[in-house]
């Protein structure tokens, strides 16, 4: 299976080169001394310093973070509720239609989602700013949460909830004390997914935002139109490292937990 072959080695190298060379170049040039993005003039961290002094970027970062936290939390609550109803309430009239309608935004072109939201906000006279971006992001990311959570709920042993009811819980208590703690990992990954989706969304945010709120992707996009600056490289590098650290930590933690549980199960069988 794991025998070395030239064909495999070459495909692997090409594949990963395709994926990562652009990012590696970006990271390298973020440490460039020169202001010209394409000419290497020695190592420096000065662009990181300038970035930290750039009020506009920091403001945009703060807006993005707030939007991401609020919208992903809201999306997680709504998405989990939707997943729970669809999986738990069994067959009711229109169930297929409802589940289809929850997942439709997954394949809807972002431009359409963005435009329809813009029309809605104008129609109801809501002033565009942080609030409208939060609402827009909640709209499109709650279906992702709902997909993640419902796939976990589908394999959830229903008798656990029945046991909770049997032991004296109301339905709400059963959900809070039994269902939620058990599906928590799925809910958390749904939140993380919504969070990252909100962090890097450009299209929908541009439709939903107004002059008072600029998110980081919008800021970067508009800055790049005036020419790529090393500052943006530095900013992107920071974002890449945050994501990398996050992903690696999460997978290490879950892997270690899995290994430990398997060992404990083996021990239980032997004893």
């Amino acid at each position, binding site marked *: 299976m794991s025998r070395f072959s030239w064909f495999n080695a070459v495909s692997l190298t090409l594949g990963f080169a395709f994926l990562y060379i652009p990012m590696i170049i970006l990271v390298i040039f973020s440490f460039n001394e020169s202001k010209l993005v394409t000419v290497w003039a020695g190592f420096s961290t000065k662009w990181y310093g300038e970035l930290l002094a750039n009020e506009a970027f920091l403001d945009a970062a703060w807006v993005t973070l707030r939007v991401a936290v609020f919208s992903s939390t809201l999306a997680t609550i709504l998405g989990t509720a939707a997943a729970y109803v669809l999986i738990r309430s069994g067959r009711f009239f229109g169930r297929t239609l409802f589940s289809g309608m929850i997942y439709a935004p997954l394949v809807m072109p972002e431009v359409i989602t963005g435009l329809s939201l813009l029309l809605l906000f104008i129609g109801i006279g809501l002033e565009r700013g942080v609030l409208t971006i939060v609402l827009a992001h909640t709209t499109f990311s709650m279906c992702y949460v709902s997909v993640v959570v419902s796939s976990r709920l589908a394999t959830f042993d229903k008798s656990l909830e029945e046991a909770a*009811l049997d032991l004296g819980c109301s339905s709400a208590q059963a959900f809070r004390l039994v269902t939620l703690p058990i599906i928590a990992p799925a809910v958390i990954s749904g939140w993380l997914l919504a969070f990252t989706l909100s962090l890097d969304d450009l299209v929908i945010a541009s439709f939903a935002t107004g002059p008072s709120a600029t998110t980081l992707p919008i800021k970067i996009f508009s800055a790049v139109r005036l020419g790529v600056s090393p500052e943006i490289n530095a900013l992107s590098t920071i974002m890449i490292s945050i994501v990398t650290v996050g992903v690696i930590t999460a997978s290490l933690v879950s892997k270690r937990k899995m290994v430990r549980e398997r060992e404990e199960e083996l021990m239980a069988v032997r004893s």
Partner: protein
Amino acid sequence: MNSTVFAPWEDPEQKPLIRFQNVTKKFGSFTAIDNLSLDIYEREFFALLGPSGCGKTTMMRMLAGFENPTSGQIELSGRNIVPVPPNKRAVNMMFQSYALFPHLTIWENIAFGLKREGKDKETIATRVHEMLRLTRLERFAKRKPHQISGGQRQRVALARSLAKAPTLLLLDEPLGALDAKLRQDTQFELMDIQEKTGTTFVIVTHDQEEAMTVASRVAVMDEGKLMQVATPDRIYETPNSVYVADFIGDVNIIEGRARFLEEGQYEIDWAEGQQALHAATSAKFDNGQTCYMAIRPEKITITADKPEAADNCVQGKIHDIAYLGNLSTYHVELPNGTIIKAQTANTRRIARRSFTWEDQVWLSWTATAGVMLAR
């Protein structure tokens, strides 16, 4: 044990703990329970037995409150419990999958129901400890469900459902996930715990041996109906139908036509050229009515020579022998092709066994050994 036999179902003065009154349950067009009435008494260990899909699990889920009957009434201690939600019933259930909460320790699992009742900390701790001791789980209190073995999980599930001291405990195939040896031990443990706590147990099972071992009474079900409700020995010795006779244990069924002989005595014409069978029964049959003779293999004697005085006696040759260790079952083929099973206890070592394949043998049984059935 009391000197009087425990049989509240024979005492007309006794009030039943549970009373199903003309209960029907439909799922869409499918009728799971069909106009069924049944009384279960306090301190009984009652078994619902039947093949999968016979409605036994539906009965249990209606008692727990997870399903509501389409029509009819279910009473618990004289009160109609149909409108009562599961969390307000003095009924607890042990689930087939055990349904232990994976995120809680064994201690917390057992304390779960008590905490919902709002008991104070000390009461809860005392009760949980009592349950842990009853099920011999003290050492595992701090573990999580995935850190203990299957047999221990089964005991946790039992302890958790008993912790609230329910009026009625429901057990859904409680031993289904255990291997044969452990299952036997656990059956006796269950009976022991039932006796100690004095709780009424209703168990659902498809394993007839399990039902016979643990239960004070067994209800055999088929297609949403009760076929027979009686003590294990009566179910086995005097089944009321071919279905029950065939479902419980091994049985020979011989179809024939009844012929009245004298009060309580009938002859059964069952095959051309064969002597009619002789049977005693208290039931009434018309002359020429189709009837069935159900006779257990262990009630048939197998001999080399024709027995002198036997009510029923047929000759055949040994077609097959099933050696089970303690018992041997002989499949004897009669001249007309009918196979009759006869069982003997292997009281001697195998080398001394008297019969082998193709031997001509005589099978005999008394008039009262079999049961004459109309259906």
